């Protein structure tokens, strides 16, 4: 049973289309990165899965049931962006309150609080909490009752690098235990090593979805090779040109080194030619990163896309 299945979901808000024919699913034990500019429809997608809104069109099922059904939402953990709590209550009181609402055992409250590093602050009022501490409390709240589907909206905001690493370690552990996790973030290099699949949304439409290698294939972006010549740079450049045998490559020179951008399918033949020529002393290969892929798919809109309303 999938954690959720969106089948050609569309949603309109005041007659404005916010989501258009989105088809997406999440399997148990998988971390899905959900990316997009502000206003791309990430929050709407999450709200639909949480059952806070019903889609205008399309079919949606969550944990084998209906979104918003109490029997379903009992198994969902959610960390909203900029999570806020009752300032007059302590961390422990707040978590106990939410545990009761979720039907989770109150015994796990102190345990969860120390798991997110709030053991010392659990009896302080949340009025005194820093942004990072509120975020941790929000995370503990999302983990109540061992959710089968976990949705985290910008979970690392306000967390220091150590806490961020802890968080990702925890998410991996949960994934290995079979939780399906959705991760929304703008810190792409941070999440890149941890996600199994990425979904990229722009203006309400799903631009691309898949694991990193398949996204790279879809994007068909050049691989960058950094070459250090054995002797002469010119000799290396001649070797590159003969090895590519007329295929399109971009060659740049600088610092006595050569930077070559080559299409992924030509990469191996170029490398074999270079090895045979003996003109090369060292090389490093740069695959397009998640950020490169994201920028590629977000495309021409550029800055215009980044400024959109949430």
């Amino acid at each position, binding site marked *: 049973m999938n954690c959720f299945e969106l089948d050609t979901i569309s949603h309109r808000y005041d007659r404005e289309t916010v989501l258009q024919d989105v088809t997406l699913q999440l399997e148990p034990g998988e971390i899905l990165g959900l990316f997009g500019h502000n206003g791309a429809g990430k929050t709407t997608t999450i709200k639909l899965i949480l059952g806070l809104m019903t889609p205008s069109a399309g079919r949606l099922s969550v944990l084998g049931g209906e979104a918003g059904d109490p029997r379903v939402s*009992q198994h969902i953990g959610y960390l*909203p962006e*900029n999570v806020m709590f009752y300032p007059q209550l302590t961390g422990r009181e707040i978590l106990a309150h939410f545990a009761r*609402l979720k039907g989770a055992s109150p015994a796990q409250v102190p345990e969860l609080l120390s798991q997110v590093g709030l053991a010392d602050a659990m009896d302080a009022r949340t009025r005194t909490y820093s942004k990072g501490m509120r975020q941790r409390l929000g995370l503990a709240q999302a983990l109540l009752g061992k959710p089968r589907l976990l949705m985290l909206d910008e979970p690392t905001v306000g967390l220091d690098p150590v806490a961020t690493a802890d968080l990702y370690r925890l998410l991996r552990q949960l994934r290995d235990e079979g939780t399906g996790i959705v991760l929304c973030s703008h810190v792409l290099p941070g999440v890149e090593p941890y996600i199994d699949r990425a979904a990229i949304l722009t203006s309400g439409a799903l631009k691309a979805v898949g694991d990193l290698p398949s996204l790279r294939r879809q994007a068909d972006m050049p691989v960058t090779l950094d070459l250090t010549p054995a002797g002469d740079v010119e000799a290396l450049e001649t070797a590159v040109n003969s090895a590519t045998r007329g295929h399109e490559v971009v060659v740049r020179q600088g610092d006595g080194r050569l930077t070559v951008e080559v299409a992924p399918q030509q990469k191996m033949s170029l490398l074999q030619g270079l090895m045979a020529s003996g003109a090369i002393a060292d090389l490093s290969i740069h695959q397009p990163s998640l950020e490169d892929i994201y920028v590629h798919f977000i495309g021409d809109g550029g800055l215009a896309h980044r400024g959109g309303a949430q």
Partner: protein
Amino acid sequence: MNAVWTIARKELSDSLRNRWLVAISFVFATLALGIAWFGAAAAGQVGYASTPATIASLASLGIFLIPLIALLLAYDAVVGEEEGGTLLLLMTYPLSRSQLLLGKFLGHGLTLGLATVIGFGVAGVAIALLVEEVAIVSLATAMGRFIGSTILLGLGFIALAYLVSVRVSEKPVAAGLALTIWFFFVLIFDLMLLGGLVASEGTLNPELMPWLLMLNPTDIYRLLNIVAFSGSEPLSGVLSLGADLPVGPAGLWLALVMWCVLPLAAALLLFRNRRI
């Protein structure tokens, strides 16, 4: 039901924590004792006047105070959660919107109910113990009726406050509207009724006029507590209309209950259609 109680429990413990419960109880007890002891001051003497006079004075005061306290207690029930950022989170829990609002209603109702029972109850017991030759049975009946109707009046205004709270998206706006509600029912309504009565110069159906009192919960409350003793004193002002009302106390009680049920039902309906 469990979720409703969890929400109610939080509201109740909030009002214990911020001393609302204690403060309201204290105010009620002080006022009741003050009125009981100095109620006869206008007649040139200090001491317990009579049970009907005391209840009448308490009810006149309650009309101002109870709606105000209820509205202040409840006006931010939903809009406050939204501004605090917790409404969205709550709605992702296995908790329906109706359950949230009913839980709040139970919590706020218990707060006001407890404060009323403690505050006026203490005063009632003090009167019974300290005043000699007071008829305990009639005092207890009158106090019971007073406390019961006070709680109902409070619940009605809590429900009216929710009606505002589920509709607006900013707390100051909700506060302003809540005060407007208070102003309308407590101060404006009777004036309008009297004005209408005089201006119509008798052209209005005289049988219709008393029913108009039913449109104001504070008038029903006043009727309930004062008409019960109407044998002893003539009614004044708009309340004289109430003497012509063909419904007995049971009808008045029912009307007061309706003033809790209808606004609450409307608030539930509005909340269900609210966009989060």
